[in-house]
């Protein structure tokens, strides 16, 4: 279970910056990766998508190469442990890249008719960063996995 730190809601006239700081500090998000300052960019996207639901590390497997030369065509496979029955299945899978100009990459909607909660694609990563996959289950629980990738061409003069 996540350690949830609650902060008093900022007053209505608080600027966006204060809201973001509260979100980042509040971190109802225990992402599946070593402790690291959560990026505001990603946090905001996660809050917008999943609301206040805790996002737990687990169930999701994210396959991503450790290195990519240009980051233009990076193969990615996301699979989620699930029996994919009517009662217990994955509803949706999301992919985020925290340092891309836009953090969202794709959103997939599936159901028991798929039999396997797995999707593969090819994506663009603009620089070395963490990539996060999030799955929403039929019981509305939210699970995640994150992997780090180094994009080598972006380290230059």
């Amino acid at each position: 279970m996540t350690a949830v730190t609650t902060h008093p809601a900022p007053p209505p006239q608080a600027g966006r910056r204060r809201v973001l700081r509260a979100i980042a500090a509040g971190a109802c998000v225990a992402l599946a990766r070593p402790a690291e300052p959560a990026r505001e960019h990603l946090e905001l996207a996660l809050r917008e998508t999943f609301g206040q639901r805790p996002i737990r590390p687990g169930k999701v497997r994210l396959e991503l190469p450790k290195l990519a030369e240009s980051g233009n065509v990076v193969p990615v496979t996301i699979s989620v442990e699930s029996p994919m029955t009517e009662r217990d299945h994955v509803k949706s899978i999301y992919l985020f890249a925290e340092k891309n100009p836009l953090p969202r990459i794709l959103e997939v909607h599936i159901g028991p008719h798929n039999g396997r909660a797995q999707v593969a694609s090819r994506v663009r990563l603009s620089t070395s960063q963490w990539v996060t996959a999030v799955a929403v289950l039929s019981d509305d629980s939210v699970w995640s996995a994150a992997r780090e990738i180094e994009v080598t061409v972006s380290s230059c003069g």
Partner: protein
Amino acid sequence: MSRLGRGRVRVPERAAKGEIVEIRAMVEHPMESGFRVDNMGRTIPRHIVESFTCTYGGSEVFRVRLHPAVSTNPYFVFYVVATMTAELVFTWTDDQGGTATEKAVLAVH
């Protein structure tokens, strides 16, 4: 002016009832992210495929919302439980009203 091209799909010709089959689908599209600049530094406008859906026997079995970070010629691999002999219809839609459709029949025994 949409630059959506042709779709290509790979669906097994036949499967046993209840078998989980792998589907591959791709469409030609530049997926211009909106973050590139031309040779004089001016932003090249975004032009991307925004959605990809697959129906099987008329019901939706797979839907993707794509953002600019999906690579050129968007490619997906996903799975479907073979239930009946029916048509799979793949539809891609881009942000300039372009649509492309591909069909394939899955024979289920």
